[in-house]
């Protein structure tokens, strides 16, 4: 199957890069370690067999109170292969920092600003990490699970 070939390619390139492979309803998720994210991303974009040049979306999920608390989901799309792939990175609650993917996919810029704004995840190397939806002087990160839906903070 096409999706297996991506994983095989990735494993051939670096056996340690793939931490875990999840499969649910026909969607493949590759879990990678934070320190490998940039290398894996560059491989997936540049390798002629994968070419995931289109970054659809970055979704941050808060698993509070489970540790590692945060998950970043990178939804990739390969126009040449007509395939989708999800990269997942897990981040600890006391250290929600991930490398910025803007050098790999310029589209990551606003997605990362949104994850920073609403989830409080910092992206190292981001060119312009400011709040994007909330006012600049807002306190707290609204999409975190310990942030109330209504009432006073």
């Amino acid at each position: 199957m096409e999706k297996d070939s991506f994983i095989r390619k990735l494993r051939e390139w670096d056996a340690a890069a793939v931490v875990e492979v999840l499969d649910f309803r026909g969607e493949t998720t590759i879990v990678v370690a934070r320190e490998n994210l940039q290398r894996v991303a560059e491989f997936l974009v540049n390798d002629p067999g994968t070419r995931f040049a289109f970054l659809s979306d970055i979704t941050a999920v808060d698993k509070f109170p489970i540790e590692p608390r945060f998950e970043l989901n990178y939804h990739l799309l390969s126009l040449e292969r007509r395939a989708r792939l999800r990269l997942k990175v897990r981040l600890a609650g006391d250290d929600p920092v991930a490398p910025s993917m803007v050098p790999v996919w310029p589209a990551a810029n606003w997605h990362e600003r949104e994850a920073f704004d609403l989830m409080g995840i910092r992206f190292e190397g981001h060119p312009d990490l400011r709040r994007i939806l909330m006012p600049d002087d807002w306190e707290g990160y609204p999409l975190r699970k310990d942030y109330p839906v209504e009432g006073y903070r």
Partner: protein
Amino acid sequence: MPISVETPTGAAETMVLNMGPQHPSTHGVLRVVLELNGEIVVSAKPHIGYLHTGIEKSCESKTYSQAITLTDRLDYLAPLSNNLCYCLAVERILNIEVPKRAQYIRVLLTELTRIASHLVWVGTHAIDLGAMTVFLYGFREREEIMRILEMVSGQRMMTSYFRIGGLALEPPPGWLERVARFLDSFPAHVAEYEDLLTQNRIWLARTKGIGYLSPEDAIALGVSGPTLRGSGVDYDVRKYFPYSSYEEFDFDVPVQKDGDCYARYLCRVAEIKESAKIVRQAIAKIPAEGPIRTVAPGIIPPSREEMKTSIEGLIYHFKIYTEGFSPPRGEVYQAIESPRGELGFFVASDGSANPYRVKVRAPSFVNLQALPELVVGRLIADVVACIGTTDIVLGEVDR
């Protein structure tokens, strides 16, 4: 924390101009901080968030069915596309199949909303650039689509007509004839818009060669929809990853090579015609009789009759409407082609009756990111054309 102040690039003799958030041609509450050298744009920074309503957060405290009504409010020009994408995502988590009749009706109605949305786009874009008549003509046809939607769902805009597992109601008798009547007169109206714009010298001067976006930049910036196809990339989710039986319909994906505002205009006008083609095929395909909802006890509400006559039906009805249903643990990313591009819903379930996380991949949000690419180095008057041509809906950008 101090409120950040925009820092111009520091070039000599530049002026900072604040455009919006209350500006008629920003199509809502978009604010763009422009740095100008004379009439030339040196830098542009879009500021968004004025319409942020926290829909993603609200979804987490609703049941799966209740969240549908929130999705209407994202892209309010194409509410049925949002309904469809969210329902498809939840249906994938549940692993249920929707009856063919409901799938075809879904296709028909989403294509009608695509036509309606593009009509608003062509009208407002033209009025921004000084052509008043197209706006009036476009809204005349859009009104008929709104009436069809009202006939089917009872609502003009916030329809919430697609439900998890199928449709909310059986469509009323005579609605397909009304759609067919609309289609009979529609091609002549599209020709009217094209008469007014396609060869119009002012229109050509204002859009041709303006707001160029190369295919490489468009892909790198994640741009999708007609804005991407205007740059020569044929990516359309309906063709690449068919959903809701789109693979059974025969239609073309209009692509233009030039990458300017005019190319994107041609793409959208051609798309209006293709959508009309799909609607016509759907009319022929929709069976007169058949279920509009899948059967999944405990997940999909039973029919009215079953609820009144069987004890199981009554129990399921009560349980579904009081506590909802609990899908298995898991997460899916479902994408569809909305009028603006790739609309995606990431839905994560933790096994409870409320979605654990709902994330909307809004095409307008991503497309707006490309705005500085379009306007820098051009005249300030072209900024209006470039905002119009990316076809943003702020309800979706800010969520």
